[in-house]
């Protein structure tokens, strides 16, 4: 019954371990805090952009899981700092002895599990943004003119502000506006021949024009913005529709939003990775410290050499012990209680 990965820890290395662990725990708490901030920021951005993402897009699950993982990491960091500080002080350690075992189990299971899940989501979810944005932006463009329809009256303002802030126009380019009626029928003069012609020129009876809203305009352009009659080469002096249009934003809002959200997700991913690595280190260090101090019977300043280990026995032995223990609990009068039930069974991760 050899302990798994044992490490001999005399007094000085134990003290060094405790001090290093204290530092790492505070770093973990900091990383947990950063994760919380990043995921909070991503949640806020998603809330602002909720009109442009279809409701069925699962992307919002990522910041929520990351929020939970960050909280657990913060808690682990604080516990680690407290425990390693207490392990250097004989008066403060006894209350920690009982609590440390279950806390380690909880930290490994909850914290580790959540972090791995969050990392997995960071890799898998950004792919679903594509379809979500496609649907959402399409709906927003179609409802741009519906400023008096309840439920869609904010679409115009939100889409204009999106195009102004993210420097984009239309879904994939400015020509998307040519295929959508973005001028409400309330502002169309029914007696105007041009209006009537345009409405009759297509099957659905939409008023389609080769113009774009003002929010597509690019302030960096040297000339005042050209928004209307963009396909007509003779409408404006010195303007050739066949040349790339420097007047308007060239990027589509789909690409702009995708880039924006993906960069936020990758920042969150890197913070999660750092937190994960720090958490592993802190949990390992705490386990070694705990088992070493248990070996000395809880005496902090003991000069003896204690052995720290991960698990008191190998995996097979552990499972056998756990199985027999469960069996013992079921049978009221057991005589063959296994000899392996050696005293300190603290913090055995029996999960």
């Amino acid at each position, binding site marked *: 019954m050899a302990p798994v990965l044992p490490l001999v820890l005399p007094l000085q290395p134990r003290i060094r371990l405790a001090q290093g662990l204290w530092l790492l725990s505070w770093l973990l708490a900091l990383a947990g805090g950063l994760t919380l901030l990043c995921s909070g920021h991503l949640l806020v951005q998603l809330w602002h952009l909720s009109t442009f993402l279809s409701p069925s897009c699962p992307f919002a699950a990522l910041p929520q899981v990351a929020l939970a993982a960050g909280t657990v990491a913060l808690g682990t960091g604080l516990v680690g700092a407290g425990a390693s500080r207490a392990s250097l002080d004989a008066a403060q350690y006894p209350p920690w002895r009982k609590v440390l075992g279950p806390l380690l189990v909880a930290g490994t299971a909850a914290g580790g599990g959540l972090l791995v899940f969050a990392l997995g989501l960071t890799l898998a979810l950004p792919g679903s943004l594509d379809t979500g944005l496609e649907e959402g932006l399409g709906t927003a463009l179609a409802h741009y003119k519906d400023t008096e329809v309840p439920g869609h009256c904010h679409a115009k*303002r939100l889409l204009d502000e999106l195009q102004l802030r993210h420097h984009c126009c239309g879904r994939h380019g400015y020509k998307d506006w040519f295929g959508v009626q973005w001028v*409400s029928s309330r502002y169309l003069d029914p007696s105007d021949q041009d209006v009537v012609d345009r409405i009759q020129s297509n099957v659905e009876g939409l008023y389609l024009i080769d113009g774009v*809203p003002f*929010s597509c305009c690019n302030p960096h352009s*040297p000339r005042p913005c050209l928004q209307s009659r963009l396909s007509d080469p003779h409408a404006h*002096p010195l303007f050739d529709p066949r040349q790339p249009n420097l007047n308007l934003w060239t990027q589509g809002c789909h690409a702009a939003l995708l880039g924006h959200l993906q960069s936020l997700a990758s920042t969150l991913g890197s913070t999660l990775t750092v937190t994960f690595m720090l958490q592993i280190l802190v949990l390992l260090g705490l386990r070694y410290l705990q088992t070493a101090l248990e070996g000395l019977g809880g005496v902090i300043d003991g000069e003896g050499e204690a052995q720290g280990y991960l698990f008191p026995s190998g995996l097979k032995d552990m499972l056998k012990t756990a199985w027999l223990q469960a069996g013992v609990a079921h049978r009221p009068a057991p005589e063959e209680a296994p000899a392996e039930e050696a005293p300190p069974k603290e913090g055995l991760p029996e999960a």
Partner: protein
Amino acid sequence: MALLKVKFDQKKRVKLAQGLWLMNWLSVLAGIVIFSLGLFLKIELRKRSDVMNNSESHFVPNSLIVMGVLSCVFNSLAGKICYDALDPAKYAKWKPWLKPYLAVCVLFNIALFLVTLCCFLMRGSLESTLAHGLKNGMKYYRDTDTPGRCFMKKTIDMLQIEFRCCGNNGFRDWFEIQWISNRYLDFSSKEVKDRIKSNVDGRYLVDGVPFSCCNPSSPRPCIQYQLTNNSAHYSYDHQTEELNLWVNGCRAALLSYYSSLMNSMGAVTLLVWLFEVGWARWGEGRGIHLPLLDLMNGWDLRQAQESAVSLLQTSPQLSCGSDRPKFE
């Protein structure tokens, strides 16, 4: 005879020393806060110096920066004096410098109060700078091919979009200047020729505004040209239309932004000033700083009280605290 006898035992002295040490470091932190406020204001003014004709006064941010640095220096010096005061030899070295140091502290507090007042009073000069700067900015809006002014169009457009404003006092300011460059005018068109002939300077004036004046909250697509002609647009009345363009002028918008910035900075500086003055008054009122230091040096109690009384009679204030907490 002693002023305000205070009984001291070891515990009280230790608590007092710790408190004074904390106050000292809080003062240094306050100095850093003032410094960063001044830096922030300077950067904000620099960002928009284009629309202020590069002639805006940087007096307020510069003085905040200087005050912040001086505050840090003085309070660190105070900490150093009190730290050294626990060692009789070093304290003797500092003793002749104490009176001039206290006088300088008084001057510093007066200067800090004056800077606080300036924060609240700079509004007037900023208003006139902004009025001139914006007028010129709008004049150069069309000169996108003139070196040195080619960025003015972009600056004014981004300003109007960000601050939700149009023109100097309102959108009609755009009717009085030619904001479309001659390069983009079709001189063979009759309409263009009419407009150019209609005024003395031969400028192409339109009743239209640039796109950056448009308000996204308007229910109808933005109307930018022929704003005063009701018949040019269906169901449009320019007298009652409110949501189409931004109604604020950029001068008022920028002025309110900078005023609120400087007011909050003035409030923070006032708080810091009150903290500095209040702490010093408290220390003097108790008359404990110097007797405390003398006690810590192991001097005779009567000697300590006499030295404290003589110092209090000659100097108006003390702003010194011990910064070494003793764990005995």
